[in-house]
């Protein structure tokens, strides 16, 4: 699967992300890491062009400022339902290992909590490839920015041109 692995996609994503980050810098005085991460995810999802569930889920999620990116976990409801359940449930074996792993996977890939096994694994492989590209692109941006930082302002233009 070539998707997410071409140079062109990498260029488009990293440049779009950089633009988005510059834009958000102009509008607010500082960008928290959380907001930046969110921007990176959203631009990544836009690049997916609505073809995958995980990307649609990211774009559909409300924008959160601050630290609450994840949904609040529901508080455990105690007692009443447990009384109604037959005793048999207590003796039932836990879910088989594979099912448990699938469940964990469903929680990691956005928007896939109720997906069938087939679709889940497809979404997962696409999601992994996209994340890898995200890492490559963000690393590239970081390196360019860091390189610019390391050099004196007057030298910056000249030496970057020589790279």
């Amino acid at each position: 699967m070539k998707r997410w692995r071409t140079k062109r996609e990498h260029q488009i994503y990293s440049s779009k992300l950089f633009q988005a980050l510059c834009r958000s810098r102009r509008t607010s005085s500082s960008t928290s890491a959380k907001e930046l991460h969110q921007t990176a995810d959203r631009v990544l999802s836009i690049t997916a062009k609505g073809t995958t569930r995980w990307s649609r889920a990211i774009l559909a999620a409300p924008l959160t400022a601050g630290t609450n990116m994840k949904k609040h976990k529901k508080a455990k409801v105690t007692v009443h339902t447990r009384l109604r359940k037959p005793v048999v449930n207590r003796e039932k074996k836990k879910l088989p290992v594979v099912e448990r792993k699938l469940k964990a996977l469903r929680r990691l890939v956005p928007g896939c909590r109720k997906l069938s096994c087939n679709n889940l694994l497809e979404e997962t492989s696409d999601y992994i490839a996209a994340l890898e590209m995200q890492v490559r692109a963000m690393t590239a941006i970081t390196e360019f920015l860091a390189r610019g930082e390391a050099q004196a302002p007057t030298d910056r233009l000249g030496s970057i041109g020589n790279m």
Partner: protein
Amino acid sequence: MSGRRSRSKQSSVSSITDDQITDLVSKLQHLIPELRRRRFDKVSTSKVLQETCNYIRSLHREVEDLSDRLSQLLASTDSDSDQAAIIRSLLMQ
């Protein structure tokens, strides 16, 4: 799923045939660096799924770290339009 010849007829709507899982899981195995070198060994399904979860989590962490570094770098740079244009052109090479 339709079109697949399922050797075992045990699957109801809710349970998943082993064949389906192992088939897709083998594809997943190629994607995970940890398991790619063991391509010719048999890796159990649960191991592949476990490594997949671990790998996704580590990718998430990497992106989080990069977001951290980037947000610090952006805060400290001037990001005047000249520099931004240069970086954009570098990214497009």
